[in-house]
């Protein structure tokens, strides 16, 4: 009997905690399963829908901490939308034209979420699961992953938003059968077909549009209001006037679920205007977008070889599905039951929290997902050769053998692309890999086996082996200069493992990542350093970078930062010389042409 008493409290403290983070276009939501309950993380204003807004003023502010009336111009909205274009592109963040990438901007949101979670829970929780749109490509996924890792989160999984929602419905509402999860968020539309069984949640297929969301509906309604009620003055409206109209149209959209007609009063330029919107008007304005989502859904059902009769219902997710028109249209077209009893704004985070708990503490539940987009390589003539077709179960490993075109060729360039279009330029370029160190042989003789591994997070890893050389030597793969996900993950894991209780792991990780980036960069230009620097400079650079590498294994943040600064200083001269040299080359070429 005594044993039981001793066992109980122990058991509780043994469960690991894992946050479920829904990083959304409009709002972000964090939750965590503790014991048998899922709780939502609240910020200092006791809110659990955290606006995904970052303001770069004197200090960085996020979410409800921003005073939008004051900081509207310096605030960045909907940063998630930029991940589908280029997570590493540059965005102007303030009036001084400073730039940051979407990865760096989203990092501020993740850091903030980490901070409010730690405050709310009164302990530092580093482990998390992050949800991403199911239709996101690899580049957007790894961008989100890097962003969260840089904020000091130990990202244990990326899972698809509709999958997380279905998991919540399967566990909490005991839904069983084939369900379509219709997820219309602020910036993305996902549709996933799942088979929900006892302890088993299998995605059959997924589709969507990574650039279609509730934001677009809001914009359409705003345009209608501007054209109908403010046509003569619509170009003279100030930012804050537009913002108040935006808010009015958003609230009209949200309130049209219960009534057929809404009149909203707004004051613009000291004049009161009554905006009247009826369900019929809404239907007309939104028809095109909703029809588009229904078409995508219809095609998915066909692609999955499933009959409409076999489908047990629709699960609605995402704030925009509160719009009564959406369930109405789905019902009209598919004649299926519709479920939306779990809060569409919070169910994704909720499902992620459930899955996160399962992952870290073990469970009988199994979640099987697919990749939304085909993965392939560019062949001669700019066509795409598919290697991993869309809706393949993940993880998946596929191998492809490459050979050389010319005698004695020692390297091959491979472009990896993702998407469904035939022409590779219309798809997303994930990366260009250069296989080097191939043993020189006659054309067509080398056999380089390249392995493409798409892991359960939807992140791609590429490795290669030169089979023809007999000994299975690994080929060097050069990619972009930044750290890859697995390097970053290891950094985060080791920092957390060795961190002292009272240390801020986030800052430590940030300094480590900065240091590794610099080391990486230097390794990449090693040859140029040797030709452009003096012996003494080279010695110093090598010495500092070796010291830094050693220090990286410790957790001495100050030392790492000092050495990084030193190394930066030492390579500054070199960087200048490199720019000069490139300029010389450029000038030289120009003159040649003139001759």
């Amino acid at each position, binding site marked *: 009997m005594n044993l039981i008493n001793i066992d109980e409290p122990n058991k509780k403290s043994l469960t690991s905690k894992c946050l479920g983070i829904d990083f959304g276009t409009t709002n972000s939501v964090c939750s965590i399963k503790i014991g048998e309950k899922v709780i939502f993380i609240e910020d200092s204003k006791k809110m659990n829908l955290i606006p995904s807004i970052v303001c770069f003023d004197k200090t960085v502010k996020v979410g409800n901490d921003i005073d939008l009336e004051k900081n509207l111009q310096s605030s960045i909205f909907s940063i998630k939308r930029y991940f589908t274009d280029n997570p590493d592109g540059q965005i102007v963040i303030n009036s001084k034209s400073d730039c940051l990438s979407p990865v760096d901007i989203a990092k501020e949101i993740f850091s903030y979420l980490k901070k409010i979670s730690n405050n709310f829970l009164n302990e530092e929780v580093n482990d998390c699961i992050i949800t991403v749109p199911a239709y996101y490509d690899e580049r957007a996924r790894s961008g989100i992953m890097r962003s969260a890792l840089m904020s000091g989160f130990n990202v*244990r*999984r990326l899972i698809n938003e509709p999958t997380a929602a279905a998991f919540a419905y399967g566990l909490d509402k005991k839904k069983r059968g084939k369900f379509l999860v219709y997820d219309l968020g602020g910036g993305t539309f996902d549709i996933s077909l799942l088979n929900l069984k006892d302890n*088993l949640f*299998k995605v059959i297929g997924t589709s969507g549009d990574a650039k279609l969301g509730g934001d677009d509906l809001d914009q359409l309604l705003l345009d209608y209001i501007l054209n109908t009620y403010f046509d003569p003055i619509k170009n003279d409206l100030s930012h804050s006037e537009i913002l108040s109209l935006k808010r009015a149209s958003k609230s009209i959209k949200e309130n049209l679920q219960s009534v057929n007609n809404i009149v909203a009063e707004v004051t613009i330029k000291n004049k009161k205007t009554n905006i009247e919107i009826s369900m019929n008007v809404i239907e007309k304005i939104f028809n095109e977008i909703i029809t588009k989502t229904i078409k995508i859904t219809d*095609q998915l059902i*066909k*692609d999955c070889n499933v009959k409409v009769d076999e489908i047990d219902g629709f699960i609605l997710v995402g704030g925009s599905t509160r719009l009564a028109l959406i369930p109405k249209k789905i019902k009209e077209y598919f004649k299926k039951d519709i479920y939306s009893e779990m809060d569409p704004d919070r169910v994704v985070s909720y499902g992620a929290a459930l899955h996160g708990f*399962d*992952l*870290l503490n*073990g469970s009988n539940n*199994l*979640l*099987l997902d697919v990749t939304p987009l085909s993965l392939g390589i560019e062949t001669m003539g700019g066509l795409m050769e598919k290697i991993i077709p869309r809706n*393949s*179960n*993940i*993880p*998946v*490993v*596929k191998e492809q053998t490459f050979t050389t075109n010319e005698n004695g060729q020692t390297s091959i360039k491979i472009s990896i692309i993702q998407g469904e279009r035939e022409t590779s330029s219309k798809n997303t370029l994930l990366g260009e890999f250069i296989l080097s160190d191939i043993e020189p042989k006659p054309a067509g003789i080398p056999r380089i086996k390249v392995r493409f*591994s798409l*892991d*359960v997070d939807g992140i791609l890893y590429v490795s290669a082996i030169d089979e023809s050389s007999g000994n299975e030597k690994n080929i060097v793969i050069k990619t972009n200069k930044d750290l890859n996900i697995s390097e970053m993950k290891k950094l985060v894991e080791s920092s957390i493992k060795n961190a002292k209780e009272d240390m801020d792991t986030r800052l430590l990780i940030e300094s480590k990542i900065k240091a590794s980036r610099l080391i990486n960069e230097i390794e990449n230009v090693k040859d140029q350093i040797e030709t452009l620097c003096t012996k003494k400079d080279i010695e110093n650079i090598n010495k500092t970078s070796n010291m830094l590498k050693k220090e990286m294994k410790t957790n001495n943040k100050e030392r790492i930062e000092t050495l990084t600064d030193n190394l930066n200083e030492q390579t500054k001269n070199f960087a200048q010389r490199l720019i000069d040299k490139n300029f010389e080359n450029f000038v030289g070429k120009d003159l040649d042409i003139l001759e």
Partner: protein
Amino acid sequence: MEVIIPCWNCQTDTKVVDFRCSICNKIQNIRKTNPYDIFNLKQCYLIDNEELEIKYFQLQNIFHPDKFINSAEKEKEISAYESSNINNAYNLLLNNVDRIKILLKLKGYKANPNNEESFTDKDLLEEIMELQNRCMSIENENEKVKIKTEIIEKIRIIELEINSNFEKEKIPEIKNLSVKLSYLEKIKKNLN
């Protein structure tokens, strides 16, 4: 004779139970190369999809990376490798054309390597052409459903024929039917 490979972790030649070493309990590789063996299925052309699915889930329940999130690097590696392996094998077996190739290979025959899509049979060519023409001139949803049902029925009959030819080891017939089957599957897919 069964080849005994020692456990990668404790190096003992012990029994492997449910893919785990009975001494140190570490996960082991599946060590099977053909999809039928991976799922422990009888090497027949017609398979029970439900049985396959159940076995697929059982294996993924053992090997899926979600089950190894706190494990050491080597176990994670085995999990990722075998989980993909299981996915690939599962998809191959679900595909009625791939299944022909696997079985031919298992029985020691070469599956049509390059001339996979060439027609040796004139009647077959005509039949396919006619079907394709009908698909091109579909005018309404009803007609589409009708043709689709027809094609599905044709596929079902061919599968039965292939199965009985495998039992009788009539290899040339199988190869011919395999060409027809892959064309029908393609037409069916294009109807979506």
